[in-house]
């Protein structure tokens, strides 16, 4: 089964443009199918993603990491195709890899090397000259906050430090796209906060686009502006979080006292949809109606409004809906 969605627009044309090339989408999937043995892991994914930070969400085994690994050319699709920055993974995988920085989900390092040497080597493998790679290795380690520990062997690092070291090797060569696979796995709350803050900084600096793969909704909500939810190898839902936030500004939750049916009827006459239970009321404001109109009706009806919240669907709501669908 194929799931089709034309998704999100880029923040601006310039953000979505590689130097000297016309505007291109960050990731385009066209019927992408990946099979291991006789089991389809990704089933005909079709999507076009252009956000500055894209979250890949889904339960364990949904196909998030497989999608990333396929985009990096680690797995060959049995059908369909995918493009990264307009370059086909079948024909231009080497070029795509030169544009990408990647942090794998699991431990990935050479335990007997110190961080500087390791990251310098990774920089050189990406094509940086030796001296430049050394300089940028130091720079990357300072950037991720491992400056003091940069001459320590990687095998002695804590889990949080290893995650940061992985991030440093992913950015050392200055990629256009940073792919992070479960970057907060196993981190304590403060280390997680630090990682999230860093991803936000990278996103906001606008030098790199970010694809964040996670099953932690909070991480994705904190960092991404587009979300692709996968379930059983298919696209369960796409959400542009920015648009979602704007759209849901019309959803109100009220705590009211002294109301009778007249208040609800008056609000509904304005075209709003209402649902009342005890002294709580939920409503979707009609076009052209704002909260002042509600306050005016409440004053006319002598209804006391004790609390008024604009409530939007949290990513958790969106995710749960996608899982139920």
């Amino acid at each position: 089964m194929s799931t089709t969605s034309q998704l999100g627009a880029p923040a601006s044309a310039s953000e979505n443009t590689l130097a000297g090339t016309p505007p291109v989408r960050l990731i385009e999937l066209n019927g992408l199918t990946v099979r291991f043995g006789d089991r389809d892991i990704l089933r005909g994914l079709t999507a076009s993603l252009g956000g500055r930070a894209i979250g890949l969400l889904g339960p364990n085994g949904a196909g998030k990491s497989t999608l990333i690994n396929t985009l990096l050319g680690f797995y060959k699709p049995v059908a369909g195709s995918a493009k990264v920055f307009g370059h086909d993974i079948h024909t231009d995988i080497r070029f795509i890899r030169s544009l990408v920085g990647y942090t794998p989900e699991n431990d990935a390092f050479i335990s007997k090397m110190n961080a500087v040497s390791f990251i310098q080597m990774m920089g050189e493998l990406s094509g940086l000259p030796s001296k430049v790679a050394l300089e940028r290795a130091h720079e990357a380690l300072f950037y991720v906050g491992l400056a003091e520990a940069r001459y320590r062997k990687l095998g002695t690092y804590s889990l949080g430090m290893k995650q940061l070291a992985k991030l440093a090797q992913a950015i050392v060569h200055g990629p256009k796209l940073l792919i992070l696979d479960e970057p907060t796995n196993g981190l304590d709350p403060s280390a997680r906060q630090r990682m999230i803050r860093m991803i936000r900084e990278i996103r906001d600096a606008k030098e790199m686009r970010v694809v964040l793969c996670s099953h932690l909704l909070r991480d994705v909500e904190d960092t991404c502006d587009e979300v692709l939810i996968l379930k059983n190898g298919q696209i369960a839902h796409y959400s542009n979080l920015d648009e979602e936030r704007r759209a849901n500004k019309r959803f109100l939750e009220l705590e009211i006292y002294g109301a009778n049916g007249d208040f609800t009827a008056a609000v509904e006459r304005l075209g709003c949809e209402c649902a009342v239970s005890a002294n709580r009321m939920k409503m979707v404001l009609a076009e052209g109606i704002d909260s002042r109109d509600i306050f005016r009706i409440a004053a006319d009806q002598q209804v006391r409004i004790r609390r008024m919240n604009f409530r939007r669907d949290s990513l958790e709501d969106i995710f749960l809906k996608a899982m139920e669908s």
Partner: protein
Amino acid sequence: MAVYRRSYKPYSGTLTAERSRFLVLFRYSRRNLFRSKFLTVFFVLCFFWPIACLAWIYVAHSASFLAKLGLRSEFVSIDNKFFLIFMSVQGVLAFLLTAFAGPGLISPDLANGALPLYFCRPFSRAEYVLGKSSVLGILLSQITWVPGVILFLIQASFAGATWTWDNLWIAGSLILSSLILIAILSLLAMALSAWVKWRIVAGALLLAVMFFGAGFAQAINAVLRTDSGHFFDLVYLIATVWTNLFLVDNDRAISAGQAWIAILVYCLFCLWLLLRKVRAYEVVR
């Protein structure tokens, strides 16, 4: 840029040539190998035999020294057998060096899951294998055909143009026999280390393949009353090819052609094993 500044900027400078990037792996792997004092000492010891052979060549051409020892010049003749003996000793040393250095090249990358970090870059599996095998290739070359050819040239300078012209094929045999040894040892060491992912076990397995292979071959020959068991004995196969290359008379149970084919099959099998394991992620079916 000063390293104390916490900042990030994209890279817009020139990149190195893609075809030479496998040398990055060669450089780092070689540096890691020589951090071991044992390996460094053993590597130096590997040059003792070539130095002894050099002294032997000098003695063979020193009439006064031979006279003092009361030896005739025929007793110390420098010919194809001399170079085969040289290669046999260096071959054993090359094997021991491989058993020590080879398994440490790939197994740490596999054990620590580092392969995705290599292959998410513009760097292929073939380049990875080439980079790692070039470490062993150059290391083993330094103790096999390079000193062999140097000895040949020194002998040629002593013996004159006629000897050189008549025995030029020995230089070719030195190089070819070394390359066969280097290919099979490198591929075997890397394939085994890729499969067991544990350096010490891979080293032990390499020793086992070489020594227990001979025992296994003898057992097959004895039980089945055949000579086909020799195909399981890598040392025997290499020795068969070498004696053929150096034109030394021998009474071998299998022909040189069969030995060549068997070694080629072993090399291809090791390469297949290696490429099956050297992947960013292993798909468990």
